[in-house]
């Protein structure tokens, strides 16, 4: 059974204070690891897909990295508008079509 654990559960940062969110996973053959951003009451907004260990992707202040056991979402010089819940999800070969999500990290950026 695929499993995803995200840490920390919540993180409060000052504007401009960089940090990293962790996503540990177990899956029978990684088909893809996905990062989403979710605002309250809204649908998850796609950020990144990572397929293999060593892969990195960047978008504005966000950078996602992947190893064989975990993924990190690095946030550089965050702004208040980066406040949201960040969800990590995996999809494995031979597993369900659906994504297995972690509980998310609730990020608050204070001005």
């Amino acid at each position: 059974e695929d499993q995803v654990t995200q840490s920390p559960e919540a993180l409060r940062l000052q504007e401009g204070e960089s940090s990293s969110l962790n996503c540990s996973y177990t899956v029978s053959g990684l088909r893809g690891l996905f990062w989403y951003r979710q605002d309250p009451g809204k649908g998850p907004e796609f950020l990144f897909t990572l397929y293999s260990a060593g892969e990195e992707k960047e978008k504005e202040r966000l950078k996602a990295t992947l190893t064989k056991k975990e993924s990190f979402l690095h946030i550089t010089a965050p702004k208040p508008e980066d406040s949201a819940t960040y969800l990590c999800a995996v999809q494995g070969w031979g597993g369900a079509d659906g994504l297995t999500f972690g509980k998310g990290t609730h990020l608050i950026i204070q001005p």
Partner: protein
Amino acid sequence: AAGVIQSPRHLIKEKRETATLKCYPIPRHDTVYWYQQGPGQDPQFLISFYEKMQSDKGSIPDRFSAQQFSDYHSELNMSSLELGDSALYFCASSSPVVRTDTQYFGPGTRLTVL
């Protein structure tokens, strides 16, 4: 760019009633997924369809059924509603044609069962 469309956005029902949620995938996406997200919970996979055939099944109650139509839109039918069915229901779509299984989510339908 066009996104996933869901309707209605909000729905209020009484216990034991039925509800139908609709999903219109991104154009040229042929795979649709349904998820349920309870308050403070992560999204849970319910069911998926590829080319109008059921592709996979997750934790979908027997009271729920779904189908995908010839125009690729999908409907989730929920019967004998219970208080615990109150949640956000998301539809997502993907296109296996491109080398990505990325699922793009819609804005969701908030179902409240009274």
